[in-house]
């Protein structure tokens, strides 16, 4: 057991899975000699060679499409997209091909590919290096979507994703890479795709969050605790399929729900969580389901004042908690 940074946990999962199963390969821009622009694949090139650690041309659609072909022919590819903002050229390959291969072939062919990519805003990441893309992909039947929020989960969910016989989108909020540290067992373990987890118990209201928003939410919960508000904080972890049971159980206890996401609010992922609660926990609710999310502009602007205007911070979350608790 060692305390690792989030990024190191991801790197470790790669190393262990590469050693465990020679079918595993990783491909993407700069994943080879450079070890990835964030270091996720550091050390793999020297250890496992360029056949398995593949610096690709700058062409995302083919990164996805070629991974699909590799998977059809016996490999277990991890396709890294350098920034989630640049996964869009691969949208067709992921939505029309990867996610449909099994269904359309009536189970004749599968598609065990992991699509990994750093998403979300950090300082100075601006319009095109900060996007949240989970909404687009969580909507795609045939695709699983995970968003680990701790180093422990980052390692365990990456292993689960690599071993999953179906395509998994693995989303890493880049702000966590170096800031979030935690205990990570050295050896092999898996965090199953699916279950959400209660990160903080409370009884006044439930916050549902994932990625960086989980950490802001935990801090906000801490802040309002001093004011006597006991917020429960649920880490969704897997966005698709959604763990409804954990959500509904929490709402049944607290009777109030706040969904926090950094992505643009309108038709954002949190709408599904809100709609699910509204539909299935109607009689449990003492207050309207509330969403706190990114403004509906095309991305996080670069200039500091604009960036701060955009961000969902612990302060803004605390503000929402107070409002919801007072309803």
């Amino acid at each position: 057991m060692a305390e690792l940074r989030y990024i190191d946990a991801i790197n470790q999962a790669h190393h262990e899975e590469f050693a465990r199963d020679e079918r595993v390969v990783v491909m993407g821009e700069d994943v080879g000699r450079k070890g990835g622009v964030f270091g996720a694949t550091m050390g793999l090139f020297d250890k496992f060679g360029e056949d398995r650690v593949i610096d690709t041309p700058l062409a995302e659609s083919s990164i996805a499409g070629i991974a699909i072909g590799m998977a059809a022919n016996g490999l277990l590819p991890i396709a890294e997209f350098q920034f989630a903002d640049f996964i869009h050229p691969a949208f067709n390959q992921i939505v029309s091909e990867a996610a449909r291969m099994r269904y359309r072939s009536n189970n004749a062919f599968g598609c065990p590919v992991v699509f990994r990519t750093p998403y979300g805003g950090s300082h100075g990441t601006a319009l095109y290096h900060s996007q949240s893309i989970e909404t687009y992909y969580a909507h795609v039947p045939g695709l699983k979507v995970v968003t680990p929020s701790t180093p422990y989960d980052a390692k365990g969910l990456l292993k689960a994703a690599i071993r999953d016989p179906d395509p998994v989108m693995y989303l890493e909020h880049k702000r966590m890479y170096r800031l979030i540290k935690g205990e990570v067992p050295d050896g092999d373990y898996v965090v199953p795709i699916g279950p959400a987890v209660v990160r903080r118990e409370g009884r006044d209201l439930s916050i549902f969050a994932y990625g960086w928003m989980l950490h802001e939410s935990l801090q906000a919960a801490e802040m309002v605790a001093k004011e006597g508000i006991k917020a429960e904080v649920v880490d969704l972890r897997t966005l698709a399929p959604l763990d409804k049971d954990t959500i509904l159980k929490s709402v049944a206890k607290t009777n109030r729900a706040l969904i926090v996401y950094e992505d643009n609010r309108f038709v954002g992922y949190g709408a599904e969580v809100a709609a699910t609660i509204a539909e299935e926990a109607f009689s449990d609710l003492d207050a309207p389901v509330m969403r706190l999310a990114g403004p509906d502009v095309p991305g996080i602007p670069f200039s500091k004042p604009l960036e701060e205007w955009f961000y969902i911070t612990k302060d803004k979350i605390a503000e929402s908690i107070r409002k919801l608790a007072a309803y």
Partner: protein
Amino acid sequence: MSAMEAKARVTPARHKTLGLSDQDVLDMYYYIALARALDDRMWVLQRAGKAMFVISGPGHEGCQIGAMWPMDKKHDWFVPFYRSIAACLVKGMTPRDILLGLFARAEDPSSGGRQMPGHYGHPGVKILSTSSPVGTQFPHAAGIAYASKIRKTGEVTMTAIGEGGTSQGDVHEAMNWAGIYKLPIIFVVENNMYAISVPLHKQVAGGNVAARAAGYGFPGVATDGSDVLECYRVSKEAYDRAKRGDGPTLLEFRVPRLGSHSSDDQQERYRSKDEIDADRRRDPLQTFRIYLEGVGLMDEGKLKEIAGRVKREIDEATDYADRSPLPEPESGVRHLFHDE
């Protein structure tokens, strides 16, 4: 190649020089005849209201059979497109498999009736499942070939597309990748001069798809797709090249389009009668028959015999597929993921 040109190209030794036996060329003819008859049957069934939709490849059969002939039917991979009916037959699918798809039956090996007809796939003979978005198959094929290369399986991968499809970014990206890694792959472009109604000069800058290969550092060859033996020859070269580890080849076959794009299209609305007639004269079923007659391997009797055999097979397959059950409604939820 017209009938007259076909006659001019009859030289007794031609197929032997290429290493093809008499039986080989007779078998090749059989497959062309089979594919065409199956195709005709599908249109008849569609017009009779027994099938909702047909998309097929009349005119493309010759090049497909020539291209597929060198491939190892069990070992090598094929990543088809919707016109690949003849190629899929040579690769190992049966008329039954194809008609089960046409009738959207539960037993359809391509998709269990989930996809439109023409979306071939068959795990047993290593034909990857086809989707509709044109161009996506090229990266898949490159990925399969990359896996073959690093897993050292010795497999060759062939994929096919229309000339219209080469405009897609995916096609460029896949050829670039294949060139970088010198993959054991053959890219087949079946150029029938139209993408639905859009003529070649509005789709392909420069007008010459094969010429694109040079930009990726591998050979590109343009061939008359109605000259079956020539299609075989260039494909065999491409196959050997792939086997030797010398990398990809781009094969452009210039083929006649003998029908409308699909059963939803009427080509008379955008093609002149003259042009359609000119295409008819390049029918590989005819040009190859002329060759076989010329070298004394085909006569009236033999033709009848093949036609009879083909008809029997297709009748049998039609009956079978027609009697085969449709999928259960509740099966719609299945196979979203592996364990379901």
